[in-house]
């Protein structure tokens, strides 16, 4: 992915067949087409190469390509499925699909677990949760006493760390979010159910090739 073909002198990123992507995800073909328009606009904003770089991702999210945000960085890392430092169109659609209201809960469990497992050890460790808590507070220009932080962590791990080993493994995470599904509310974007009507501004160019049968 990421190679080019010339169409009327314009550089257009190649892409996986939208019908294939639609069949693998909860998106319809026309929604995949609409996502392609969005992808084109994001991926060309800094360097026109048909791929979304970290800068372009941050620019799209925050309108600021130098924004520092731990969580947006984590999302980017997970969207960068092949660990190439860039997101191609297939990665983009398949990753967004996890946030679709119709995506399987198990996919959301897996994605969120990887999101919070900052160092990729296969466990969400206490020090990682503390780091994320501190990062969130700092973003909001708020501070909490260390002992309050420790208390929050104690309460959280009391609930989530069933075997009391100081870290949350995948099965503990699964049990925890199943019991508390609101913890995964960040994993669902309701407007993905209807992107062509909710966000009409990027559909203007959408060329759905109607199948003539």
């Amino acid at each position, binding site marked *: 992915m990421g190679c080019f073909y010339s169409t009327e002198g314009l550089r257009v990123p190649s892409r996986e067949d939208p019908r294939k992507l639609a069949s693998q995800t909860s998106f319809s073909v026309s929604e995949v087409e609409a996502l392609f328009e969005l992808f084109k606009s994001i991926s060309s904003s800094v360097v026109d190469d048909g791929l979304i770089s970290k800068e372009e991702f941050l620019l799209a*999210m925050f309108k600021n390509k130098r924004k520092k945000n731990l*969580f947006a960085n984590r*999302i980017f890392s997970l969207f960068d499925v092949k660990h190439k430092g860039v997101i191609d169109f297939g990665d983009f659609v398949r990753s967004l699909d996890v946030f679709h209201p119709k995506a399987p809960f198990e996919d959301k469990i897996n994605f969120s677990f990887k999101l919070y497992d900052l160092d990729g050890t296969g466990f969400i460790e206490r020090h990682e949760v503390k780091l994320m808590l501190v990062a969130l507070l700092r973003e909001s220009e708020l501070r909490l*006493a260390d002992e309050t932080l420790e208390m*929050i962590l104690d309460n959280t791990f009391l609930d989530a760390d069933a075997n009391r080993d100081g870290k949350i493994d995948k099965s503990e995470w699964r049990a925890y979010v199943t019991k508390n599904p609101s913890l995964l509310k960040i994993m669902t974007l309701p407007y993905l159910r209807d992107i062509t009507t909710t966000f009409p501004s990027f559909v203007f160019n959408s060329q759905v090739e109607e199948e003539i049968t």
Partner: protein
Amino acid sequence: MENSWFKKGLVSQPRKTDKLVFASLEIHGSLGEKINDFKYLGKPDNLNAFDIISLSPGFDLSGLFSDDVIEKDRVRFMSKQSFGNIILKLEEIAKGLMLKVVKIDGGLLQMEGLKDGKNGVLDIKFEIFEIATDVHFIEAKRFGGDNVGFLKILNEHIRPALMGVV
């Protein structure tokens, strides 16, 4: 749970459970007319670390889909006061500013302006989360009205009343 709501003319019996106090309250205007009649559900949610973490705008992918510059229509701060006091102060401030408190449910409170501005009527929603005993995290989001008015109310009235050293 001692709470000064109950001194304001409680009309129905509160039903107390471990986590919730359910009460109905009438608020009367200066002329004695009834302004609002709404139900309170007591204690706001207790947050765990992941609830707090998920408040980050870094998880909000809607920016990818929209061209609009993200305005500062959201303010977060902490208050080292009890939930009851926070609600009371918000109500007092709203009354002083001629804003209607429309709904209170769990940890949610809405303030609505009475005059139509260029962006519609000012509409602010407050979500109050308990982080530790009497330590609350408050998020104020603007849904209607303009940012200038919103930020003015937050910075000149609400934050000074609710914030202290945490």
